[in-house]
């Protein structure tokens, strides 16, 4: 018997930590007690993104958007809405001009969003493979296995213009082609789910909310480059993501979508999970591969690139979670469809974790080329307490600040780099007039100094020196030369560090100096300041 109503309870990590699990159980119980088991399907879904307002419950098809629901609300919700058809007004999300009943798409948080990578998050039960299958899941794999050659897949990716979402922005089709063209008896696919940026949780949400899309994409990659084994490298701090991945892999094996001779195609593929201990540097691809091999996770010189010489010396495709989340859609809808979204150089969408001093924090997906202003003021709802906007930090510890004058920049890989920041993995932290930029820079340097693996001198020593100087300035003991030295050391680190960690670690300090130099000057005692100028 098909269901008439669906009650979707968000079970992302953020909602889970505010008792969404108990809420789900309570709703289930009341649905059963009211004899509604065969009419109402209660589902645990991945993150809806609007974490600020969690736990969130959505009732469909009525489109009732309930926010900040606690377990004690379950009885009323079930009895009033699901049994009697009377929505519980007091829990319905409201904002000026919107009363979120029957018009979820009008909530400003969702208005400018466009979901490709997050298409299934918050819509399906991630622990049930049949839900994924019902929503066009594994259609792309089917098509690839039975209708497309490896070159067809690569061509489609090339047309799409998809670039890596893990930070570097390298064209995905090229990476796959290098590995495909490499001669070897064994090749590998690796999913980079390390996600170490403070404040970022895009990848976690995709793993939790839509694990099968990862399995499908890895299998597609395997078929394309000629690999029969894939590894997911995920940090042990993501227990829910790991659990859902395990469940998904087991189900895919049971249904014959992983394993030998998938769907009778002759192609075989299996996936294993490797847990990382949560070191930031292990997200760097060469360090990650060593870590999978059971060695200490330290970056090594490239080239050779992993695409040619990777895991155990074999050609290896390594891609980020969000990159992979786009693959099935590109195969299903075509590269040309995907290429219509975004800017000249950066196609598709980007998922951001919007946090900091902004009204609506949460997980968002927007087309490339959107203005930062739209993210902060339309989706984010502006700054709480009507404080003044100061800056957005993008790209985490490798990125930099974007100041008020640049709020109307259309963001993509190139424009962010030109501003001295970077796309990074997609953390966006909003800061208001009360935040000291010296302290923000200090915070990130503190992080990278902590996370530096210590192998190369510029990173190990340079980072520590910059941090020391920032601390000195912050305490009001700095001099004008200290500012200059930060810039000199930063430049050297960028040019000579072994890996991306050291190359980008000075960015927060350098961009703070570029846009908020006055704040550094103000911290320098007047007598020394005059001397030096």
């Amino acid at each position, binding site marked *: *018997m*098909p*269901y*008439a*109503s*669906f009650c*979707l309870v968000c079970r992302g990590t953020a909602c889970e930590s505010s008792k969404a699990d108990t809420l789900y159980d309570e709703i289930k119980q009341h649905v059963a007690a009211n004899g509604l088991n*065969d*009419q109402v399907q209660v589902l645990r879904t991945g993150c809806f993104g609007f974490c600020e307002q969690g736990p969130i419950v959505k009732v*469909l*098809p*009525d*489109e009732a958007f309930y926010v900040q629901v606690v377990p004690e609300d379950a009885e009323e919700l079930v009895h009033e809405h699901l*049994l*009697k*058809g*009377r929505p519980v007004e007091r829990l319905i999300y409201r904002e000026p001009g919107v009363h979120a009943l029957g018009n*979820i798409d009008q909530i400003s948080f969702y208005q400018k969003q466009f979901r490709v990578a997050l298409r299934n998050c918050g*819509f*399906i039960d991630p622990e049930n*493979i*049949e*839900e994924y*299958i*019902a*929503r*066009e*899941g*594994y*259609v792309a794999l*089917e098509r690839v296995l*039975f209708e497309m050659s490896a070159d067809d897949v690569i061509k489609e990716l090339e047309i799409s213009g998809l670039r890596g979402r893990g930070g570097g922005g390298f064209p995905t089709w090229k990476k796959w082609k290098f590995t495909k063209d490499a001669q070897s008896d064994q090749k590998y696919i690796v999913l980079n789910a390390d996600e170490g940026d403070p404040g970022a949780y895009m990848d976690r949400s995709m793993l939790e909310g839509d694990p099968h899309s990862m399995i499908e994409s890895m299998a597609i990659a395997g078929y394309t480059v000629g690999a029969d084994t894939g590894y997911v490298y995920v940090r042990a701090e993501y227990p829910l993501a790991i659990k859902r991945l395990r469940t998904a892999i087991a*189900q895919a094996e*049971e*249904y*014959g*979508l992983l*394993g030998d001779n998938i*769907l*009778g*195609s002759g192609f075989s593929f299996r996936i294993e999970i490797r847990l990382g201990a949560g070191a930031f540097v292990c997200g760097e691809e060469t360090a990650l591969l060593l870590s999978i091999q059971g060695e200490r996770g330290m970056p090594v010189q490239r080239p050779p690139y992993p695409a040619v010489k990777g895991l155990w010396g074999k050609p290896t495709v390594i891609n980020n979670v969000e990159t992979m989340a786009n693959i099935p859609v590109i195969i299903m809808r075509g590269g040309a469809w995907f290429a219509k979204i975004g800017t000249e150089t950066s196609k598709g969408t980007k998922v951001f974790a919007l946090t900091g001093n902004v009204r609506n924090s949460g997980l968002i997906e927007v087309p490339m080329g959107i203005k930062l202003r739209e993210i902060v003021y339309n989706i984010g709802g502006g700054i709480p307490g009507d404080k003044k906007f100061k800056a957005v930090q993008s790209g985490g510890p490798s990125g930099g600040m974007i100041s008020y004058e640049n709020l109307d920049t259309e963001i993509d890989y190139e424009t962010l780099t030109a501003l001295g920041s970077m796309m990074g993995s997609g953390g966006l932290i909003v800061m208001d007039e009360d935040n000291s930029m010296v302290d923000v820079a200090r915070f990130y340097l503190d992080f990278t100094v902590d996370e530096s693996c210590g192998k190369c001198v510029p990173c190990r020593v340079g980072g520590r020196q910059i941090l020391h100087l920032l601390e000195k300035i912050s305490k009001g003991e700095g001099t004008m030369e200290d500012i200059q030295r930060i810039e000199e050391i930063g430049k050297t680190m960028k040019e000579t560090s072994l890996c991306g960690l050291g190359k980008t670690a000075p960015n927060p300090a350098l961009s703070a100096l570029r846009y908020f130099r006055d704040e550094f000057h103000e911290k320098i005692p007047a007598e020394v300041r005059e001397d030096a100028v």
Partner: protein
Amino acid sequence: MAQKKMTLEELRKLREEKRHSVQVRDTEGKTIQVTVGMGTSGIAAGAKETLQTLVAELAKHELTNVRVRQSGGLGLEHAEPTIEVRVPKMPAVIYGRVTPDVVRRIVNHHIIGRELVDEHIYDRPAADILDAGDHPIVNGE
């Protein structure tokens, strides 16, 4: 989940079987709206069976463009169970005494056949109200 390794045909069959169950959740592209009066008296008069039959019938015909909603009483207590049907370019109609059998006829004649099921119509707004165009669903398509 008693599945064992599927073939391509089995996967496609499974997807077809399950597709509807997920699509009904989607609110995009739904141009037809059916509202079932689920007030206390409606439920007592059998609105639950009506709703179940409605949903089953829609699934049977794979009508994914229909949005089913529940509401309190529709104001015609004497004729319950009641449902309201809004199909673009057709008058919005409230049907009464909608037993499972009647609901099947409504799906087949009204929603699929675009023909009103005359003998069960209890309320039909005047044409000028209909034209007022205040309802996006009616104007949709």
